[in-house]
């Protein structure tokens, strides 16, 4: 049990996908201007990562591993995740219109986002079993959400701040992200 908790803490804080591994920077900067968008994006990432983690892990275990086509992993995962997200969107529109209205515009944005791809590849590289893979996917997604929501809170305040002209908008956002990353580095050595 403690292994799983360690795994979760590691994925959320110590190896935060956004601030330590620097994956998924486009949505990090793109959807962090307002808290509403950040929350919607975080929910969508949790949803997609969980699905993608399961499908890619199964793909690896059932096809790629036994056949010996591990070198095809990246391209196969891209196709699988893209098809999956498309399918989920079609399915949600019909069966879960409420959820679709909430996540609808964010789903296509993260179709084969590097954070999603990255977590799927990490799951394989670390040779997680199914349960570990599930915990890891959720925890990385939660870490993504945590960082994004914290960052959106900061940016909402930065927008009304006195920022020198050349540093406005994305520049100051990157500087801020750098500081956040530094502070997250403080978790190194925790585990």
């Amino acid at each position, binding site marked *: 049990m403690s292994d799983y908790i360690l795994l979760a803490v590691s994925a959320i804080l110590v190896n935060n996908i956004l601030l330590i591994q620097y994956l998924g920077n486009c949505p990090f900067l793109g959807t962090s201007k307002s808290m509403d968008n950040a929350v919607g994006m975080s929910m969508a990432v949790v949803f997609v990562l969980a699905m993608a983690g399961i499908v890619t892990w199964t793909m690896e275990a059932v*096809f790629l591993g036994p*056949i010996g*086509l591990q*070198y*095809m992993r990246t*391209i*196969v995962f891209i*196709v*699988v995740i*893209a*098809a999956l997200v*498309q*399918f989920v969107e*079609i*399915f949600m*529109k*019909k*069966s879960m219109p409420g959820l679709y*209205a909430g996540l*609808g*515009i964010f789903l296509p944005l993260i179709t084969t986002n590097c954070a999603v791809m990255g977590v799927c590849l990490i799951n394989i590289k670390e040779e997680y079993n199914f349960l570990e893979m599930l915990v890891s996917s959720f925890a990385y997604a939660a870490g993504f959400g945590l960082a994004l929501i914290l960052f959106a809170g900061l940016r909402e305040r930065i*927008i*009304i*701040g*006195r920022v020198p002209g050349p540093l406005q908008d994305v520049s100051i956002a990157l500087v801020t992200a750098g500081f956040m990353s530094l502070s997250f580095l403080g978790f190194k050595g925790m585990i």
Partner: protein
Amino acid sequence: MLEALLLMMGLGAVSGVLLGIASKVFYVWEDPRIALVSDCLAGANCGGCGYTGCGACAAAIVAGEAGVGACIVAGADGAEKVAAVLGMEAGAAEALTSMNTCTGGFRASEKFSYMGVNDCRAAYLLYAGAKDCDVGCLGFGSCVKACLFGALEIGSEGYPVVEAEKCVGCGACEKACPKGIMQVRKPSDRILHMNLVTDRIAPCRQTCPAEVNIPKYINHIKRGEYDEAWLTVMERNPLPLSTGRVCPHPCEDACRRALADDPVSINQLKRFCSDWVMNEGTSLKIPVAPDTGYRVAVVGGGPSGLSAAFYLRRLGHKVKIFEWLPKLGGMIYYGIPEYRLPKAILYADINRILGLGGIEVKTGVEFGVDFDLESLVGGGFDAVLMTIGAMNHASARIPDEDKVEGVVPATVFLRKQGLGDPYLVGKRVGVIGGGNVAMDCLRSSVRLGAEKVYCLYRREVKDMPANKVEIEACQHEGIEFVTLCSPTRFITDDEGKLTGIEYLKNELGEPDASGRQSPVAIDGSETVIDIDNFILAIGQTTNSAFADEEGTAASRLETSRGAIVNNADTHQTAIPYVFTSGDCAGPPGLLVAAVGAGRRAARGIHKYLMGEDMAFSPDRLRVDSRRMKGHIAGTIFDSIEGIQRKGRIGQPELEPGSYERQHTYAEVDLTVTEEDAVKEANRCMRCCLTCYNQDT
């Protein structure tokens, strides 16, 4: 290698087939028009419409939840394309525009020096901002940052300036402003707005009975934007050419500049810009809201009825005006003589109003005789506005005043003149009364050939309610004022024809309710003056005899001393669908008050028809422009600083004593020149509640 190729092909095939099946199995029927409408929208997913993205907005439009003009970025062109897709009329959808309502900026004084975050919302958290004025702009430009379209900037004077061409009316600036200074409104919202104590309005604008945005139009004149100035006036007053000539301008009495030198000649500036628009013949488009499908009957084509018809039409209702005389204009057509308000000028105003389209006119029909409330309701009208004016005269309580030949009420005298069949007066004419109607009778008598004209008044000249300029004009035209007199008896010859009038001299006693000393006749002071004609100009009453007939709908109307009783705010009468405004709703008043009441009545009718709450906000600003009371606290000053004496421009007029002045009906007061108008506009200090522009 082969395995890899097979794997990829297999994967692609499986994914493709699965997605294909899924799109069939999980097919959601989507109106094909949504995609077509979506193509007409801006595609920016900006959210300005209030929906999550353009797709949701398109779905809402097709579902009928949003109007065809929902996409503010695509604007009117987009709305037309959408309407074409949906096979609907786009209608002249009203444009939302942002407007800054504070002109404080750098000139506004500060309570303390604020050093915090450079943002209005942050500054507001500290004692509602550093500005002395509770409702003033903080000037950090939160609205500017909120505007996605670059339509706003903090101008050179320290407050936001809207660039109208770029503004799409998304409302982001209004949301960003912690003080409610940025207001994004449709023209109809602005028509429906009545002055509130929380508004940022200068003393002149608080005083004007029609609530015209005076500092704004004067500022337009200052910048040479005469058409914009005119449009600003038209938002509150659809008869600017007429009011520009005859208004006694209570606004000027409240002008703060009077504390330093003279008040700004506000009325002359209004006259100048409206004359400019009339003479240049520019076809300025006045926005009209899409049709609501309601029809309103306006009974009486006087100023209040015309004003109400204009605003009702602009709010989207169809209007029909019923007038018993051959021409529209009521008292200002038949009561005000040609030399003060030429009929052609008045008709230029009226034609602008009728030019909106959707206003029908039927003249020569009298309420209570040719038609009544039953026939109007039967004719499909949803509401009725009674603006029948006060066309009966009040009694002077002199014995035999309605029998003696040569005695005539002012209403009849002026109406005959307006109808082109003037009442012929003798060589000597007496007029009793000290109001503007009396002045009109006096000056008309001069032009009808009377050699000696007397004005009889029970108090002194300074107590006369007439406009000062009118009294001066009478003096210029050789009219004699017989003040402190009470006529008691007509003197007639053997045939019953008037030859003279006997009066008692008065002395002034205790002040009455209006603050003026009441006259007391002195016994034994009988004096006689010889006159051939005597005109009664001491007030008018409404002919509301139709309300006394039993068994008619109109009999349910309540009357008080002839006037039709209404709710002073909503203008609704005892019959819910009947409204009334102008002279017939209370004591006869100024043209500008009738115009203002017309807009309030239009608001009442609109709220009634649309099923909205009709009552005024508790914050309603109620100013008594006659007694100069009720202004927003702290806005009426005792003295002002930093103003150099400049003196106002004079009133150009026809040479006193000239042939035109004495013997023709040529307009006496003339319009100021463009040079003078701009000079005068520059005297305006562009006041707001507490701050104003000082001379530098």
